[in-house]
């Protein structure tokens, strides 16, 4: 069984999200600066109040987080770079929490953000990874859409999922997004709209895909003592897991690394899936959300379509899911997509979510998934956040 140590004494606080923009003339530096300012303001800190920084961004080039430290004028004794896309939120949290717990840093600001110029997405794709360059792009150049189309196709063959099953996830998230003033998508989405949307890479159509945009997300990790001293609402980290390149011999991805570590996650937290008041999955495509419900123990493998059919995934439903609209409806601001669920969950369990607030939210599961290096997502992670009053 797990020999993982607890995260006692460490908390997460000061969630901040910038509004998202479809296209921006600004740089990643601008968006990350905005997010840092936002999270510091939320905590009543000046920038010399932090001594640790964790950064996830795809568009900082030619800078790394080292360059960013000089750019933003922060002096640090702990600096981390998280190149893990959709898993960056969970991974940033785990590392920052251990750093604070071990006394390597007092207060760590975790940032994720990217800009989106007119041509950014195309450029990002063209230099994403060596395997993608060698073995994915030359074949139709559909980007991640094609890869997820293939595993959606396989998932449908294997488990009998239908387009309607995926559509219900997207439709519920749009409902949630309509409550979130920062979400890019402002129009309601019906199941019919979903089913009739323009095909992108069969069986994936327009509303299975996220909208690339510019924006940033941030939160702070500090000791509980520090948070209490500053009067900040916070969440505790009940359990986390992380896994990379799990199940490399699976001929096509139908499960992620969560399935390896799920028992550790729940036993560490002393909780079970039914205890969660809300779930934030990484929703780059609806099929991936289904995989997370399965691999994180909400239902058995291949059962997510049936499991979700009987549930209401909206903010007021019996299983609130991706309450800010998720990436499908709020937008995918590059690496910030890996923070979206984390920051929203933090708002939820600290009862700061405003219009998307789930009543009595105490426990939230946040899951991350990232980096389509070739034919599958390699990074996975999950964390359970618990509100202070819990």
């Amino acid at each position, binding site marked *: 069984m797990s020999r993982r140590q607890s995260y006692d004494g460490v908390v997460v606080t000061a969630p901040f999200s910038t509004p998202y923009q479809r296209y921006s003339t600004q740089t990643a530096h601008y968006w990350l600066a905005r997010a840092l300012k936002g999270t510091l303001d939320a905590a009543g800190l000046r920038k010399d109040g932090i001594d640790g920084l964790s950064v996830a961004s795809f568009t900082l080039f030619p800078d790394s987080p080292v360059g960013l430290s000089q750019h933003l004028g922060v002096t640090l004794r702990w600096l981390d770079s998280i190149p893990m896309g959709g898993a960056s939120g969970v991974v940033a949290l785990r590392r920052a929490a251990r750093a604070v717990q071990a006394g390597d840093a007092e207060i760590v600001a975790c940032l994720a953000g990217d800009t989106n110029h007119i041509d950014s997405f195309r450029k990002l794709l063209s230099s994403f990874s060596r395997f993608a360059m060698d073995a*994915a792009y030359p*074949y*139709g150049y*559909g980007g991640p859409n*094609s890869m997820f189309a293939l595993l959606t196709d396989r998932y449908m063959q294997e488990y009998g999922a239908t387009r309607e099953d995926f559509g219900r996830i997207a439709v519920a998230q749009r409902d949630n997004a309509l409550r979130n003033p920062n979400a890019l998508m402002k129009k309601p989405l019906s199941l019919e709209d979903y089913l009739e949307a323009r095909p992108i890479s069969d069986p*994936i159509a327009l509303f299975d895909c996220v909208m690339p945009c510019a924006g940033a997300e941030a939160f702070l990790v500090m000791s509980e003592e520090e948070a209490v001293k500053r009067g900040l609402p916070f969440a505790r980290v009940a359990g986390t897991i992380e896994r990379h390149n799990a199940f490399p011999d699976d001929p096509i991805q139908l499960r992620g690394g969560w399935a390896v570590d799920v028992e550790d996650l729940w036993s560490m937290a002393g909780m079970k899936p039914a205890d969660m008041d809300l779930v934030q999955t990484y929703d780059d495509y609806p099929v991936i959300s289904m995989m997370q419900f399965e691999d994180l123990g909400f239902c058995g493998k291949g059962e997510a379509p049936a499991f979700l059919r009987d549930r209401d995934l909206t903010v007021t439903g019996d299983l609130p899911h991706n309450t800010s609209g998720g990436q499908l409806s709020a937008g995918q601001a590059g690496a910030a997509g890996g923070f979206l669920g984390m920051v929203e969950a933090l708002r939820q369990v600290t009862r700061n979510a405003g219009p998307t607030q789930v009543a009595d939210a105490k426990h939230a599961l946040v899951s991350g998934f990232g980096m389509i290096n070739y034919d599958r997502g390699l990074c996975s992670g999950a964390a359970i956040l618990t509100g202070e009053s819990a």
Partner: protein
Amino acid sequence: MTDPLARPPKKNPQKVQTVPVLPPAFRSRAAMGLTAAAAEGRFKLQHCAECGAVQYPPRDACVSCLGLELLWKDTDPVGELIADTVVHTSPNLYFRRQAPWRCGTVRLNAGPSIFCHVHGDCLKGSDVRLLSRLDRAGQGVLIAIPKETTPNMADDPELRELGADPKHRRVLITDGRQPGAPALAKALLDAGAMTVFVGEGETWRPYPERSALEKMDGVHLMPLDLTDTSSVVELAGEIGGKVDILINNARFMRPGGVLARGDTAFARDEMEVNYLGLMRLAQAFGPGMKARGADGINNAAAWVNILSINAIANDPAYGSFNASQAAALSLAQSLRAELRPGGVKVMTVFCGPTDDDWYQDVPPPKLLPGAVARSVVQGLRDGVEDVWCGDVAKDYAERWRQDPRVLERELAGDMG
């Protein structure tokens, strides 16, 4: 079932010409192994020398045992198509134009799962065969085709895009006087070529091949003298816009190496035809072909040079001629790189001794014209860069791969 490819309509000169754009061309050095194999039409994957694991995508270390010696070896190309998709939209201009484009995941019997192009006749859940092909960018790619032949299989738009099939294309054969010219013209017409232009120099001088060529429907004899720049330019002015495949079969040869000849007269003639002739052709026809690389069904697709296998290793019995073949091969490499932006392939057909007067001293096996013609057509269909025509050429190529220096000594064997 694949719909048969319709004969293309006459080109509308008022329409804007479609500019050639290419699929993504960048590859890691390891991945170039796939391209090298595709250039010969062979399906090879990386095999670990230590543990034998077969892996894909190409790596710099064995994914199974971290062994560093990775060999590109012929591999069982059969596997199951386990998932597929049709890409409708792409940020890449080439695939945007080609859409919808079918791709899929094939789980090879040899182990790895491979994301690849998928022929329209492949059935999901069925066995398919992977082919290595060069795409329009000149890079190696993999395409799944049905295990058994299907009607009009070659007309599948993805497969056609990866080759230079003569069907519905217009061809120029540069030298009608070569003994193999009629067989070549016939093979191309049989393969569905719309038109075969055949060049002839010194038209006043009769030659036996002419009557055979004249009789063929679809053959047009055109004056062409490769030693005369203005003749080449003139023909390019006339038909340059409708040559989709250019086959340079011209050859001037005399026996002898360096010391057997008292002067440079024949050497000059050899270079004039075999090397400078190719350059004149390339300068006159190359730019137009490069610009017409995306011109619909009968776009410019390939440039073929028919050379002696001794272009790669000299046989001193024909030492001076072979030097001109080496020069032509080197120039063809340059031409290949220069035509690549247009998506036009450059193919070399390496021939062993041909069964004609100039190789009368050489013992068999010797190449008959029909064999060369079949090799050219097959090479075009497969879109390869190197065709080893006949047993002698295949044998030399194998020995050359093993050790060029040893082959040089072997070829010089009877020189004392």
